[in-house]
């Protein structure tokens, strides 16, 4: 079976601290998890950027399990909007992207955006002089 790597933004409902959800992902579904970003506001909400490594079928089941427990799971690339048509390839965003998601092509000097490497640090949002990034980690689905 092929081992795959997926990144999801998880949105936890206010009362979800009572279940060891990530433990279940590891124990029951044999998923290697890596928390890349977490933001918890007690009594209100919790947001998590989670990297899951494991068999694709297990990851799918793990996500189903989370959703059954009222955790909204969105693939990371659906949470990132980038208006590429307006990009001028200035490079300002690459100066702050330590995850290596935003890089300049060494020959064409055009921006390359590998969303799979994004860790939602959101530094690019403010660094882009044309305001072309919209990263939705805190709100919505």
């Amino acid at each position, binding site marked *: 079976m092929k081992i795959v790597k997926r990144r999801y933004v998880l949105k936890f409902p206010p009362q979800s601290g009572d279940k060891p959800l990530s433990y279940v992902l590891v124990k029951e579904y044999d998923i290697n998890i890596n928390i890349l970003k977490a933001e918890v506001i007690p009594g209100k909400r919790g947001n998590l950027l989670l990297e899951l490594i494991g068999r694709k079928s297990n990851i799918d089941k793990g996500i189903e399990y989370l959703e059954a427990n009222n955790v909204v799971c969105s693939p990371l690339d659906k949470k990132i909007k980038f208006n590429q048509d307006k990009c001028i390839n*200035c490079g300002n965003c690459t100066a702050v992207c*330590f995850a290596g998601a935003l890089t300049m092509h*060494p020959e064409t*000097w055009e921006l390359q955006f590998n969303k799979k490497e994004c860790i939602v640090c959101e530094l690019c949002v403010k660094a882009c002089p044309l*305001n072309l990034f919209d990263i939705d980690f805190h709100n919505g689905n």
Partner: protein
Amino acid sequence: MPVSKTYHEINEKIQKGNAVVLTAEEVAEMAKTASPEEIVEKVDVVTTATFGAMCSSGAFINFGHSSPPIRMEKIRMNGVPAYEGLAAVDTYIGATACSSKNPQYGGAHVIEDLIAGKDIALEAWGKGTDCYPRKHIKTRVNKDTVNEMFLFNPRNAYQNYNVAVNSTQNTIFTYMGTLLPNMRNATYSTSGELSPLLNDPEFKTIGIGTRIFLGGTTGYVVWPGTQFHTTKPKDENGVPVTNGATIAVIGNMKEMNTEFIRAAYYEKYGTSLFVGIGIPIPVLNVEMARRVSINNSQIQTSVLDYGISGTPKIAQVNYAQLRSGEITVNGQKIRTAPVASLSKARLIADTLKKQIEKGEFFLQEPVQMFPTNTSLNGLKGTD
């Protein structure tokens, strides 16, 4: 006897369609195997270009007269203040002027929106005079309703520019982009071997009257740019190793294209304007052939610490190192990133090259050369 050419001879070749035109990157590559003597024989024109944020930019606009007429003494365009001291309905809107309601929208955005053909809300006030009785007007203007709109940028196309780093513990937000703490990134802005004023560092061909590519149309160099400094430290090739000279440029905004003029907003800094400039350099003689042959490894620039007052110089690097993605400063490896668009600069150099090859763009000999031995005054506060 070494070859030398005149502007007239080169323009005749352009007219006949047999001028040899290369971009500055192409000629730098050629120079690896060809001498300046061979290059002056083979190449007639070298196109250079830059596409970077140039804060000292702005536009003159004439709105036309209303009935009854108004002497505009306070002017807002989409909420951005425009200059009110130019007769009744002339104005100048600067790229860095900001809307008080939305500081992320500034004169640069008004300029881009005008070029894009969008409507701009114009509001103006006057005290009312015998000949201009109207005291207030609120209307909409666009590129078709205004009489003239032309870009007149007092300081563009810096000859070389510094590399910015930040040695402090805090992130700082600058016109050189977001500078991370502890020198975790370094930003640079010049297009290196493609940069116009680095290919003619002593201004032997660029002067008042030089015809250029500006924002998608034809423009002109009209004056040495403000802060025109020709006596900054230079390397062994006579090229300044920090920000040196500049040019003032002009062009018809009605003919411009937002592909080559774009508004920018820098966090905690303000607005600026990305300006696309291309300058053709005639290869008149061996000396100019040597100048345009320069490559990235031969162009040095200074690394300045923007975290410290007075931005002290802490290192010197070349553009080949900057383009490699990493420089070493005091033993520390630092990731580099551009803040000006090389891909756009290349597009401009290539566009200009094609225009010259097709006989659509001719070289203009300067009507007056720039001054030499200039330096700058500072500004002393008396408070």
